[in-house]
């Protein structure tokens, strides 16, 4: 019996770690939605794009090499150098800021004051465009991302827990790192938005555009800032997921897993995204562990969505979302 109990504890811990990764993606959604009312469908593809760009830069790939070769008849693929991980991450971040600027300059600048559904459609278009751009720039093949994060079972934890309980906990090193990084990211973002000048401006824009303009805030600047931060979050998520399961198209589909997380946590709450992610992470692992066998397994594929559905019925604004009260 204690064996079973320890196993359950291990399942929960692994669920928490998985939840952190869900939360990381959900966070990107929340940031943009709060500041601009745009539900950014392309958040997942942004993570894919960021990860692919990072791999491309690290390997010294020539961007758009297929296109260049096809037009000029050349045969270039690599610059022949390798960029160290830290430098490559900084360069990728610069690319994401550039992307944030371009998205605002060429898309959303023309859609100010449009309805939410139109903005949403625009982000779907953006998702496909970005996916294509990613393939064109860096090629569509499966890439491995190795920025030097520790991988595999944490031996120390295994030994220590085995010594204490007679049962070794199996926790992936990468998951531990991801959790720590996500925690730092969340704390930093919360503090930044609560106490800094730009954070205050950001909250102001989220609240009322007209009033924000009247106190001298440039909406454009704030939107580029928000998309840049979302790009940064996408990059972090891309690194973690990419290191775990390779950089490939399916990376962008994890965005869909963020949807139930948002329904649980509320679309406008940063803590909500975290708690929602953790609940879904733990919930689906625990469900699979306890009842999965009876239901023919693979419950992880649908559990999150069913849970979100139940939430939609009883608490449509999510755990931390703002309650919508219509005055008549």
């Amino acid at each position, binding site marked *: 019996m204690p064996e079973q109990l320890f196993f359950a504890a291990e399942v929960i811990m692994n669920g928490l770690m998985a939840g952190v990764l869900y939360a990381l993606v959900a966070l990107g959604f929340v940031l943009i939605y709060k500041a601009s009312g745009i539900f950014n469908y392309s958040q997942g593809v942004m993570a894919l794009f960021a990860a692919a760009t990072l791999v491309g830069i690290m390997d010294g790939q020539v961007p758009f090499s297929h296109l260049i070769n096809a037009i000029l008849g050349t045969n270039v693929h690599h610059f022949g150098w390798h960029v160290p991980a830290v430098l490559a991450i900084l360069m990728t971040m610069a690319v994401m800021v550039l992307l944030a600027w371009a998205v605002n300059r060429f898309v959303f600048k023309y859609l100010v004051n449009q309805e939410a559904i139109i903005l949403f459609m625009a982000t779907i278009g953006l998702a496909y465009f970005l996916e294509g751009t990613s393939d064109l720039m860096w090629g569509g093949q499966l890439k491995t991302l190795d920025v030097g994060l520790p991988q595999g079972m944490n031996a120390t934890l295994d030994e220590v827990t085995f010594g204490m309980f007679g049962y070794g906990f199996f926790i992936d090193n990468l998951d531990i790192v991801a959790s720590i990084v996500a925690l730092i990211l969340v704390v930093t973002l919360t503090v930044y938005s609560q106490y800094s000048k730009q954070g205050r401006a950001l909250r102001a824009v989220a*609240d009322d555009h007209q009033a924000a303009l009247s106190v001298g805030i440039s909406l454009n600047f704030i939107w580029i800032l928000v998309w840049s931060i979302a790009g940064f979050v996408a990059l972090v998520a891309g690194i973690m997921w990419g290191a775990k399961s390779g950089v490939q198209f399916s990376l962008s589909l994890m965005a869909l897993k963020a949807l139930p997380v948002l329904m649980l946590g509320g679309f406008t709450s940063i803590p909500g995204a975290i708690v929602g992610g953790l609940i879904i992470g733990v919930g689906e692992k625990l469900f699979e562990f306890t009842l999965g066998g009876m239901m023919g397994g693979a419950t992880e594929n649908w559990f999150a969505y069913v849970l979100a559905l139940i939430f939609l019925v009883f608490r449509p604004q999510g755990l931390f979302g703002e309650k919508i009260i219509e005055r008549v």
Partner: protein
Amino acid sequence: MNDMSTEGYVTPDGRKIGGVMMEMKNITLRFGGVKAITDISFDIREGEIRAIIGPNGAGKSSMLNVISGFYVPQEGEVWFRGTKRPQMKPYQVAQQGIARTFQNIALFEGMSVLDNVMTGRLTHMKTGMIAQAIWKGKAEQEEVENREVVEKIIDFLEIQAIRKTPVARLPYGLKKRVELARALAAEPKLLLLDEPMAGMNVEEKEDMSRFILDVNDEFGTTIALIEHDMGVVMDLSDRVVVMDYGKKIGDGTPDEVRNNQAVIDAYLGVAHD
């Protein structure tokens, strides 16, 4: 009016009004085929309380929106402190030192009163993004300095008791006062008030009038305000522009305006035959 052209003038109660701060020259504003403002010119002088009045739909709010950059007129020029203003975004106008309030209160409902008023200081905060992110030294000191200015204004407008209250929970009259506080926090050169007393009861109106006079008196802020209520305007303002159907039909001291036949017609109605 006596000697309006160069040196300014002295009001009946002995306040000295300076030279021209802002000048609107032949402003015309159209929305599609509808003319909201037709060829209007007037000026606002340093230290003065200038009112724009007129019946509903006269184009008063449109005029204020032109001054604050929310609307761009098709024709005409805006001169501010001796230079012609290029076309500007509203946030750039705010950075020039022109603050405003709105007819239908535009506050940040989710934030506390203090945070709302602090946003008024944004144009005065110069620390860069990185320094803010690291949050030490300069940024911290700047926050403290700005906080002092804000506390002073909160005291001045007598809203200390609600400093930490989320704005959404406040009654209408107080919201109007918080909005004024936020505009004042910017230490504006020119303060634009769009119907500061709309929807208020007599007592609240008296309070607001007192605050407007005190702001002008104590900080020397130039104020341009729009009002519906003739009585209030006549008591408060040094000079009045009267608009009707997008045109200027009168401009002068309250007494001059009161005795202007076109103004009387516009307000009381006149028989058309």
